[in-house]
C-alpha cells in the first residue's frame, strides 16, 4: 500500500523518460551493427577495444596500438598514474621539509607590488597554489575583518580564479602529459603564474575605469 503511495508521489520529468529510453537503447545492442552516427548509441562501441600488442611491433607497451574508447582510456590512464604518484610524492616531501613556506617568503615581496594589494593577502594567494577553497575562504575573512576593500578582493579573486590551485592541479591531472610534453615541466607553471598576475592587473585596470566613472557620477566611494 505504502509502495503505491510512494509511486504516485514520485514526479518524473520528461528528461528522465528520454534518458531511460536512451539507456535501454544503449545497453540493448540494437545499434551495434548500424553505421554512421547511430553507432554512438551502442555500449560496446563506447567501450571500444584494447590496443593490439604484437610481438613484432615496435612499440611494445601494454597499452598496444589502435585501441579505442573506454578500454583504451583505462589502459592509458593506468600508464599515467605512476607519474602522478611520483610527482605528488615529491611535492609532499618539498612541502613537508618547508619548501613551500620558503616559496611563500620569497614570493611575498615579489607578488605584492605586482598585484598592488596589501601584504596581508599574500598568505591567501600562496594558499591558492594548493587549494581553491581554502584561499577564497581566507579572502572572505579578510574582507569581513575590514582588512581589505571590496575592490581589492575582486583583484585578488581575479588572480586566484584563473589557474586556481595550479600546483595541486598541475601535478595531479597535468602529470598525464608530463611524459610527452616538449617543454620542461616548470615552464607551464611559470606561464600560469605570469598570466595570473596579468589577469589581476586587467582587473585593476578595469576597476580603475569603473571607479573613474562612478566619481564622475558623484557617487561616494568607500575608502
Amino acid at each position, binding site marked *: 500500500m505504502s509502495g503505491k503511495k510512494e509511486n504516485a508521489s514520485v514526479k518524473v520529468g520528461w528528461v528522465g523518460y528520454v534518458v531511460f529510453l536512451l539507456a535501454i537503447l544503449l545497453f540493448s545492442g540494437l545499434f551495434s551493427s548500424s553505421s554512421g552516427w547511430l553507432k554512438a548509441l551502442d555500449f560496446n562501441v563506447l567501450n571500444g577495444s584494447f590496443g593490439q600488442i604484437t610481438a613484432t611491433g615496435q612499440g611494445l607497451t601494454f597499452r598496444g596500438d589502435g585501441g579505442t574508447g573506454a578500454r583504451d582510456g583505462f589502459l592509458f590512464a593506468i600508464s599515467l598514474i605512476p607519474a602522478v604518484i611520483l610527482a605528488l610524492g615529491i611535492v609532499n*616531501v618539498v612541502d613537508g621539509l618547508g619548501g613551500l613556506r620558503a616559496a611563500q617568503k620569497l614570493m611575498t615581496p615579489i607578488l605584492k607590488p605586482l598585484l598592488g594589494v596589501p601584504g596581508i593577502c599574500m598568505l591567501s594567494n600562496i594558499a591558492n597554489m594548493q587549494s581553491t577553497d581554502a584561499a*577564497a575562504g581566507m579572502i572572505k575573512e579578510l574582507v569581513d575583518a575590514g582588512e581589505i576593500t571590496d575592490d581589492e578582493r*575582486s583583484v585578488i579573486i581575479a588572480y586566484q580564479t*584563473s589557474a586556481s590551485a*595550479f600546483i595541486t592541479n598541475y601535478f595531479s591531472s597535468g602529470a598525464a*602529459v608530463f611524459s*610527452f610534453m616538449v617543454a620542461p615541466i616548470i615552464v607551464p607553471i611559470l606561464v600560469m603564474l605570469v598570466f595570473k598576475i596579468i589577469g589581476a592587473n586587467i582587473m585593476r585596470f578595469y576597476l580603475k575605469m569603473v571607479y573613474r566613472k562612478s566619481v564622475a557620477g558623484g557617487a561616494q566611494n568607500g575608502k
Partner: protein
Amino acid sequence: MANNEVVQEKKKNILDLFVEGARSGFTIGTTSLLPNVIMAFVIIRVLEVTGLLKIIGIVCAPVMALWGLPGEAATVLVTAIMSMGGGIGVAVSLYSNGILDAVQVTMLVPAIYLMGNPVQNVGRCLGISGVNTKHYAMIIGICVINALLSIWVMRLLLLFI
C-alpha cells in the same frame, strides 16, 4: 604581515613524506585522473563515431588556426570550461589519436588551467570569497583571456626551448 611560524608538528622523515604524498597520488590517479581520462576518451569516441569531431575540426579550424592549432583543439578548451581534469583528458585523447602532436598539447597545458573551470569556480572561488557579483563576468572573462593569450606565449616559448 602574517608571518607567524607554523608550530612544527611531529617531524616526519623524507621517506614517510614521500610515501604519504605517493599515496595521495595513487588516490588522485585512480579516483580522479582515471575516471577523467575514461570520460574524455568516451567523449572523443562519441564525437568521432558521430562524425562531429570532423565537423568541429572543420568549423573551428579558421579560429584555432590563429593559435597554430587544428580545429579539434577547440574541444580541449571547451571541456576545460567544465573541468581541468577533463580538459587534460581530452588533450591526451586527441594526442593518442594523432590529432594533436606533443608540441600542440604542450601549448595547451597552461591554457587548460588558466581557464580555471568557471563552471565549478563560480561556486568555489567566487562564491566562497563573496566577491562582488558585478565583477563575476569580468573575472570569468579574464580567465578566458588568460587562457587564449597563454597559448600564444607557449608557442613563442617553444620556439626557444
